[in-house]
């Protein structure tokens, strides 16, 4: 019983059983990561290329560690300072890397849909490490996995996603993933940062952050992505922090222990205050830890699928 897909392009294409299989496998890998010897020989015969056309610290290190813990060989490629700046096309770049006998590609790209395009043109399995403002599947999986650790089965649980929903691939993948797991999802933030008709994805919309906190059991606070905003959608960061930022006082006023998450990197003092980010309720570092186990599970379960076609 393996996954129903050959690539992990988006959560949208996964079956709920796929997500459960990934979680169960990640449980095992999490255990491996807590041993003295944090490594298994499963992917000795596999080479993975990490191709990043966009900046990344956490995701990239997390993927690379996951690959090394599985004993895979790893090559890293970043667009800056490469032949891409000489005008090479995406397919040429990737095909040249694959010609060196690479079995699997992990790709981040600023263009939404780039991994789907690539999947139509190459044989290797592709894992999407974030494409434009579309999907970031491994982030959604590790978020849901971290929630599951705290809350158990997510069916019927109330999850709030707060912040820049419009420009966030994390938000979209989270919505798909949580829906498939049977959780209830609410998005909250300023009206200019919440896409119109997002209710069509089966989520509730709230413009008052305090009400959103009242409603949920988990708050996944997203980063304000200034680099993706081409025209200003709120006046100042200070105003945003004042009306939509989460701080410890708001959490203390809640009469319940709300779980706080953030995919990083945090704009401290904007969407999340330092006292909230560093509070006991925050599971931000658990998310990072679980990221390696989740990525090990995805890479392991997709490995060997290239030759099957």
């Amino acid at each position, binding site marked *: 019983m393996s996954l129903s897909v050959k690539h992990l392009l988006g959560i949208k294409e996964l079956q709920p059983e796929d997500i459960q299989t990934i979680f169960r*496998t990640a449980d095992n890998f999490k255990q*491996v990561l807590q041993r*003295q*010897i944090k490594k*298994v*020989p499963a992917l000795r*015969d596999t080479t993975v290329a990490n191709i990043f056309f966009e900046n990344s610290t956490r995701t990239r290190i997390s993927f690379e560690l996951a690959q090394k813990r599985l004993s895979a060989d790893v090559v890293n490629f970043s667009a800056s300072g490469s032949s891409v700046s000489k005008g090479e096309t995406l397919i040429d770049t990737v095909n040249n890397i694959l010609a060196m006998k690479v079995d699997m590609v992990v790709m981040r790209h600023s263009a939404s849909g780039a991994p789907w395009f690539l999947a139509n043109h190459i044989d290797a399995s592709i894992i999407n490490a974030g494409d434009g403002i579309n999907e970031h599947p491994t982030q959604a999986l590790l978020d849901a996995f971290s929630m599951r650790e705290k809350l158990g089965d997510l069916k019927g649980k109330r999850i709030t996603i707060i912040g820049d929903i419009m420009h966030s691939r994390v938000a979209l993948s989270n919505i798909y993933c949580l829906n498939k797991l049977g959780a209830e999802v609410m998005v909250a933030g300023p009206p200019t940062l919440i896409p119109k008709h997002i209710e069509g994805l089966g989520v509730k919309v709230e413009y008052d952050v305090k009400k959103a906190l009242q409603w949920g059991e988990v708050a996944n606070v997203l980063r304000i992505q200034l680099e993706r905003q081409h025209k200003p959608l709120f006046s100042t960061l200070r105003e945003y922090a004042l009306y939509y930022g989460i701080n410890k006082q708001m959490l203390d006023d809640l009469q319940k222990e709300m779980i706080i998450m953030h995919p990083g990197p945090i704009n401290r003092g904007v969407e999340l205050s330092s006292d909230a980010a560093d509070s006991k309720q925050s599971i931000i570092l658990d998310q990072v830890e679980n990221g390696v186990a989740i990525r090990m599970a995805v890479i392991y379960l997709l*490995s060997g*699928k290239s030759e099957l076609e």
Partner: protein
Amino acid sequence: MKTLLDTKQLDITLQRLAHQLIENHTQFKDTVLIGIQPRGVWLSDRIAGLLKGITGQQSIPYGKLDITFYRDDVHQGNEIHVPSQTEIPFSIEDKNVILVDDVLHTGRTIRSAMDALIDYGRPKSVELLVLIDRRFSRELPIQPDYVGRTVDTIITQKVKVYWKEKDQKDEVVLID
């Protein structure tokens, strides 16, 4: 299809295996039992239960080991194997480990299990207990220390072990 062990014979065999373990390890002071996931665990559950009864001890150090990530055929079949749980709630450092599996065939599972085990620590010794030993089909130089029943089989035959906890009956059969 031929019955290798019926309910009664299986019971006697398990009793004997448990007694043989005690003969060598008396009070299980520095000895631990580790069942190999998924199928060896049904056997190790039984053996652990019998050992408790015979020694009168509250608990026998008992763990379960998943070997999925240590297999030598990860990418040979069409399906990738989804792992089962590993539960080893104690250190195996300097312990006598008894690996438990239901059927010993090519020896490849046991090879993987030894690699997996050593990633958890350095045991003092490792022994192997199996219910059925298909002795002429080994592909690696691995032999058991405790055997329920030795059978001569050819590669196309299959040995199936039924446990009443999951299959509603205790029986071992040889399928042609």
